[in-house]
């Protein structure tokens, strides 16, 4: 089981990292999402793999390590907030820079766009 598990974590990391190295914001965001799955599984497994018992008291005699679960939960939520931010940032970059290259390079882009209006709010 452990071998299978770490292979999955490795594959997810591989896919996430590869996508993070692409040149477009969207691919990078997908890569980050993938990477966060790998991270969550990795962090979670620091409490070891418990196939039987959840950390709900009274439901059995031995329990899974609840601490990594709580940590992973926090990590998931924070990851969610970050991914949400970066997704919208990607949109903003498209609006400001006219393309979706992560390097913000000026490239012809078929779609027209409107630049942000600069009035103060």
């Amino acid at each position, binding site marked *: 089981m452990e071998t299978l598990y770490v292979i999955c974590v490795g594959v997810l990391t591989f896919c*996430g990292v590869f996508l*993070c190295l692409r040149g477009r*914001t969207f691919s*990078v965001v997908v890569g*980050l999402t993938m*990477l*966060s799955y*790998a*991270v*969550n599984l*990795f*962090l*979670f*497994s*620091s*409490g*070891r793999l418990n196939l039987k018992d959840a950390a709900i008291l009274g439901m059995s005699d031995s329990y899974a390590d609840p*601490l*990594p679960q709580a*940590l992973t939960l*926090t*990590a998931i939520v*924070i*990851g969610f*907030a*970050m*991914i949400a*931010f*970066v997704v919208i*940032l*990607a949109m*903003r*970059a498209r609006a*400001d*820079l006219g393309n979706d290259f*992560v390097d*913000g390079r000026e490239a012809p882009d078929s779609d027209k766009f409107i630049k*942000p209006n*600069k009035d*103060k*709010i």
Partner: protein
Amino acid sequence: MTVHLAILPILIPLVGGLLMLLPPFAGVERYQYRRVAALCLMLAQIGCSIILMLMVVQNGAIMYAVGDWQPPFGIILYADQLSAMLVALTSFLGLGVTLYSFAGSDREGKYFHPLVQFQLLGIYGAFLTNDLFNLFVFFEVLLIASYTLLIHGGGKQKTAANVHYVILNLIGSSLFLFALGTLYGITGTLNIADMSQRVAQLSESNQLIAQAGGSLLLIVFGLKAAMLPLHFWLPRTYAAASAPVAALFAIMTKVGVYCIFRVYTVIFGEQAGELANMIQPWVWPLAILTVIAGTVGALASQNLRTLAGNLVIVSVGTLLIAFALRTPEATAAGLLYLIHSTLVTAALFLIADMLGQQRGKALDYFVVARKTKQQALLGVLFVVAAMAVAGLPPFSGFLAKLVILQAVTGTEQKIWVWSVILISSLITIIALSRAGTTLFWRCTPSRDASETPSVSKWQMCATFLLLGASPLLAIFGASIIDYTNNAAAQLHDIPYLIEVMNLEGDIQ
């Protein structure tokens, strides 16, 4: 209230920042309310951090068990001289930033003051917590606040810089979690003090795993600190940020440096057996290369903000050198340098902004442009900042660099460190003199300057506050060096930490 002193620096900006999101502080037209609130909050934080510092000096380090759960189980805030000092430094910087923003930059976007508060909160938290995962959480707080502050004011540059900054840091956060998973998975604890004890007792193969986890942390902290080759994001980011934000960011790299000091002194410090000094072979060359990279960048900079950003990198490299020296003396020297470089580089960003305001479209680029309206004032500020940052006497930079040079022992180290620091100083002088002569003296025939905005009283106040610290640091150098010496000694005193945490005998 003094019982809860250790958590007040976190709670004041938290509650204050939240209140600013609620009526009567919320709303575009209520900015005056928010300014008053922000000022009060900053003063409260400064007061609180000073009291904290005094308390720590007087009564020793404070351990605050959040939720009344004792170490190693609960989240522990640990205020020793080092963290108290950094909290005070941060709040001081925060005051400067807040004051500067009153000139109008706080109205260029929504939520400026709450976000500054949250950013400060994150930084305080990172300095105060003694729990690795909690450190991660505070890192994320300060990061998300910085992401948001970075785009404050809007504009292409900011967006483009933010894309890099955010993505790199998200990868950094992922690595942080990998590291945390590894360290928890092998030591079974999150409390830094507890982990330091457990690491020392690991089996040989587990030590290697812990080393892998610990090494991952170096990447994380190095990225925040802008250690080579993780520094690429910094100049662009800092140059793009609006001035008060860039000034506030001056402390952000120091958070990374602080974490390197804390984690590799406590967890992988002298007591860690095989793992002691494990990252030294990496930090040594990287620190020196960081200084070189920052220096080269400074010379290559096209505008003052980028130059200041590269000087931040130089300062980080210098701090890492201080870390790599591994002695309490070097740590103390590093701490002095940390205070100095934070305040002065922050001031330099503000000066760049004020210059930019008065130079029209040329902004702070090193090109011929119209003469600034307040040449004398800005000139004096620039010269003082430049001298301080280049390490010229009589300002703090000289003192800080001198102390670091003195802390180097061993001939080989001396050759490297002295030559790198001194040559970097020289090139900084060259870069800054080129910058200054162009910015102030290469002027087009002056046109009507009546439309150019003058430096506002808030901007002046803020810059004087930050820059004024430089000569003061030099004048009161004796007591400050005393303090940093004690703080460094306390940092290196692991048994003391264990004692404060009541962790003796926790592990047989």
